[in-house]
Structures are given as structure tokens and as C-alpha cells.
């Protein structure tokens, strides 16, 4: 059977999701703290530090500008870490995937569970940051609640991309390629720390091909109390990344594990 045939998952992904959730619950507090602390430090440090030096950025204080970027940035990191390090540990080191595949769970179900789980974890951390941002008075309207589904959708997109890397990785060290060559550059050109318009045209074009800028273009207006222009386009790009990357990751995982 062709490894890249269309995915055919079933509801059997749910018990696998539940398994990951149960593990997380045992370590929940350190995990949430970890997902929260790093982006918060960036946001507050840069927001207050640089913000004091900068005039308005994108029409608002730098701290307010940075808030939406931070929500997206932390969602991406949480989803990516879970889909890379945690999934790889389960697949390769603990042989958890092997145990699950001996049950009536197909690889399609398993990879979908990993995808949705990573997105769930990312959503939790994104929601936590959102709560802090709201507490700091940087959120003007209830429209900001729409940022939660945006965070989940972005989580799916980044988790799916992460699972491609996991399916290919011979070891943990391989992940450095992904972070250095893709994640970090993407973070810097996607409007997280400064408006995309500051970039040369070529980089702006590149930015629009990558998922992070689309997440930011949805989140920032919402946090500032406005409906995002071209929302359908941004949603479509994120969904497209999620579906295509999932398909590719599953095909690669089939080739790796089911030969």
C-alpha cells in the first residue's frame, strides 16, 4: 500500500490523546510554568525595555503590539516542542507507539492524536498567556476571545510541521536543523517583534508564505479589538498547512514504521 495514500483516521485517536493528557496531568504544573515563563519574560522584558524607547508601533504601545506576537510565538513553540521532543521520545525511545500499534489503533489514529494533543497543549499555553495579557490591561474587547480558536488552529499547523521533522529525525540532534533553519528565521520575519512592513519586499513575500505571519495577522487585530481583514485567507493558510503537513507526516511515519 502506498505510504502517501490519504489519511484515514478514526475516533480511536481519542484514547491516545487521553493517554498523553494523563501523563501531562502528572506533570502539569511544571509544564504550564515552563510554557508560560519563557514567552512572558520576552514579552515583559522587551515590551517594557524597548517599549520605553519606542514610539507607537503599529498604532499602539510596543507592549500591546508585542502581546499578540507573544501569544502566537508561544503557541508555535509549545506545539513544536511537543511534536518534536515528546513525540520522538514516545516513538523512538519509549517505544510507546509500538505498544499502541499492537492494539486496534492505526498509525493514522496515532499521528492524529499526537497532532491534536500538541495543539491542545499549545492552546493551553496560549490561553494562559492571553489571560496574563488581559490581566495587564492590554486587551480592549471581547473579540480577543476569538484568539483562542486561532491559537488552536495555529497549534495544529505547527504541530503538523513538527511531526514531519519527527518522522524524519534519526535522533534528537536533528531537531536543531529545524529550529535554526526554519523556526527562528520564521519568528523574526512574521511580525512577532516588529511589523512585517519593516522588512524588504522579498522577506515580506517569504513571510506571507509561512504560517506564523498568518497567525499573527489574525491574533493582533483581535487582541486590539478589531476584526482581522482577510480573515478567511489567513484561516485557509493555517488550515492548509495543518492538513497538508499532517498528510506528509503520516506518509513519512508509515514509511519509517510500517515497512
Amino acid at each position, binding site marked *: *500500500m502506498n505510504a502517501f495514500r490519504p489519511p484515514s483516521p*478514526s475516533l*480511536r485517536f481519542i*484514547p*491516545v490523546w*487521553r*493517554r498523553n493528557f*494523563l*501523563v501531562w496531568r*502528572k*506533570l502539569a504544573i511544571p509544564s504550564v510554568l515552563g510554557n508560560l515563563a519563557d514567552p512572558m519574560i520576552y514579552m515583559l522584558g522587551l515590551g517594557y525595555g524597548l517599549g520605553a524607547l519606542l514610539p507607537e508601533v503599529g498604532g499602539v504601545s510596543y507592549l500591546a503590539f508585542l502581546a499578540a506576537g507573544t501569544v502566537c510565538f508561544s503557541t508555535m513553540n509549545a506545539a513544536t516542542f511537543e511534536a518534536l521532543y515528546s513525540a520522538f521520545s514516545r516513538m523512538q525511545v*519509549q*517505544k*510507546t507507539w*509500538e*505498544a*499502541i*500499534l*499492537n*492494539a*486496534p*489503533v*492505526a498509525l493514522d489514529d496515532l499521528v492524529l492524536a499526537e497532532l491534536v494533543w500538541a495543539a491542545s497543549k499549545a492552546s493551553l499555553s496560549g490561553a494562559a498567556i492571553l489571560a496574563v495579557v488581559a490581566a495587564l490591561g492590554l486587551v480592549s474587547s471581547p473579540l480577543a476571545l476569538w484568539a483562542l480558536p486561532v491559537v488552536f488552529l495555529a497549534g495544529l499547523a505547527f504541530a503538523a510541521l513538527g511531526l514531519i521533522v519527527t518522522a524524519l529525525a534519526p535522533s534528537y540532534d536533528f531537531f536543531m536543523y529545524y529550529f535554526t533553519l526554519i523556526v527562528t528565521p520564521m519568528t523574526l520575519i512574521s511580525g512577532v517583534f516588529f511589523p512585517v512592513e519593516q522588512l524588504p519586499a522579498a522577506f515580506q513575500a517569504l513571510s506571507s508564505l509561512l504560517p506564523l505571519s498568518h497567525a499573527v495577522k489574525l491574533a493582533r487585530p483581535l487582541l486590539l479589538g478589531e476584526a482581522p481583514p482577510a480573515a478567511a485567507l489567513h484561516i485557509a493558510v493555517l488550515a492548509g498547512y495543518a492538513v497538508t503537513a499532517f498528510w506528509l507526516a503520516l506518509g513519512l511515519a508509515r514509511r519509517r*514504521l*510500517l*515497512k
Partner: protein
Amino acid sequence: MDTLSVSGLAKSYGSTAVLQGLTFELRPGECYGLLGPNGAGKTTTLRCALGLTAPDAGTIRLAGLPVPERAREARSRVGIVPQMDNLDPDFTAAENLLVYGRYFGLPDRAVHERIPRLLEFAGLGGRAEAKINTLSGGMKRRLTLARALVNDPDILFLDEPTTGLDPQARHLIWERLKQLLAQGKTVLLTTHFMDEAERLCHRLAIMDRGRFIAEGSPREVIAAHIEPEVVEVYGEPGGAPAGPPQGGAAKDMEQAQPANEHHPLPRERGRGDGSLMSAADWARAEAAQFATRVEVTGETAFCYLTESAPLLRHLAGRQGLRYLHRPANLEDVFLKLTGRDLRD
């Protein structure tokens, strides 16, 4: 047949043919053994049967369903004990069983009901809350067996279930497997341990390089492929290679050992009649008149024969040789059919 039937199974990786047209069928309630050296294709056969590897040719039916088309469904009726433990290290013993039961679509309540019985069966009655890293190797294997029973399957696949376990643990696993067979379950077992295969299997097949080279009940296979008795002959420790017979008053002699010899000579020790021999030399010289077939490996001579009395009489009169007389077993068949070379 609602167990496993395999016909014409073939699988190649690149230019290496790992399975070359296997055909076999499990009878309900039997224990069927797959034996073979490393690389024979045992694990590949199991993976194909479970739908985890797609074969190049052949038909497979597991629990009455075609594999790989309906493999996921078929696996709901099978319990699997894999070669390497893959229990969840973050969970307790009971949690491992609960989480696994969910993969079969069992409601939590049903699994919770089964957990005490399963732990009891595994001899882990008081250890429901034990973390996996506090369990010994034998306990983990027993827990894995209990986990394989969480869905109350009729068919069990066990891949080398007692490798790495001490004798007590092995015997406990064997007792449990016999209990399961008595309950009417069907078991497919792969193993390197010939005593395990002889004890547990109603029928077995010896595989090498993707083909069956022997099949039948343990007794049938032994009777068909090897002489009924074996006498293993060893040189006594300190026995020297044959040299000219020492005359009459041989005493303890020390032989100088040059330090840079590639094969240092063993020390000679004088014996009454002065005949000093290694088993290998003896075998080359004299074994053929007593045994149908003789194999010499290192310093041991394996004599395969139908009638052992003449050889035993001869050896009793022999100094410098020690021997072990036993019935031929599956290991002898195995080594005869697959050779004594290492398979890396």
C-alpha cells in the same frame, strides 16, 4: 478458522528475501511455536500477521478477518507480548492497564473491573500503584502479559517472552501460559529457547532464511531429523593434546610455556596409563565406530546415536574424557538444521 492462517507469505527488503512463501495455520487452542536463528523472519512473520508490515505476496487471515485490509479490527481480538517491554514509564501498573484497555474501545468501568484480576494473574496483586521503574524485569514482563489480556483475547502472540528472565520468572510465565491454553486460548510463540518450545508447543516450525525447514509436534520433529540419543564428550580440564604415550612411570610433569605462544599448550598431568587425549582427537580417531554422526566443536564432541551402550562402555574405560549422556532434543535438531555459525 478464527485464529491465524497464512498462505504463501512473501516479503523482501530490497534484494533480500526475508520471507519466501510461508504457509501455516493455527489450530484453535494450540500453542504453535516459531523457532529460528536471528534473521530467519520470525518477527517479520508476526508483523505481517498483525498488519504492521505489508507483505509482497500471500494471504493472511487473523481472527476471521483479512489482513491488512481489516487489520485494525483483527487486532482487537489478539493480545500481544512484544520482545522488548514497552510499558508506559510515567504510569503505575494499574494505569498502564487502564490506558491500554481504552485503545480497545473498552469503557473505563469495564477495565477497572478487570484490573485486579489481571494483576492477580500476573502475580502483581499488591502492586497496582507501583511505578514501572520500581518493577524488576520479570515483573515488567508479567505485567506486559497481563496487559495483553486486557481485551480478553482468544489469540495471543508472544515474541520471545522469557528472554532475559531468571529461571523462577520463566517458570512462572510458562505456568501462566499453560493456564491460558487450558482456558482455550490459541498461542503463537517465537522463541530461541528449545526447552520452552518443547514444554509449551503442541506444534512448531523451525524457520531459516524465510522458509520452514521443519514442522510438526516437538516429538515428530526430533524423531524425523535426529538420532534419539546424544553423548557429549569433553576432554578433562587439563587434558593435553595427544602425544606419544608416556612410558611406565609417568609422574606429574610441568611443561614450560613460552610466553609468546599464540596457543599456549595446556599443562600435562600424568595419568596411570599415560593416554592423554583431547575429546576432538579421540573423536576423530574413534567415535565413528560408535555413533551414526559426530560433530566436533572446539573441545567437545557431539555423538549422535541410536544405541548408546557400546559407546558408554568404551568411555567408562577411558581416562581423560568426561561425557554427558542425554536424549536428543530440539536444540540438537535446530543446530543440525541451521548450523552452528553465528547469525549476526
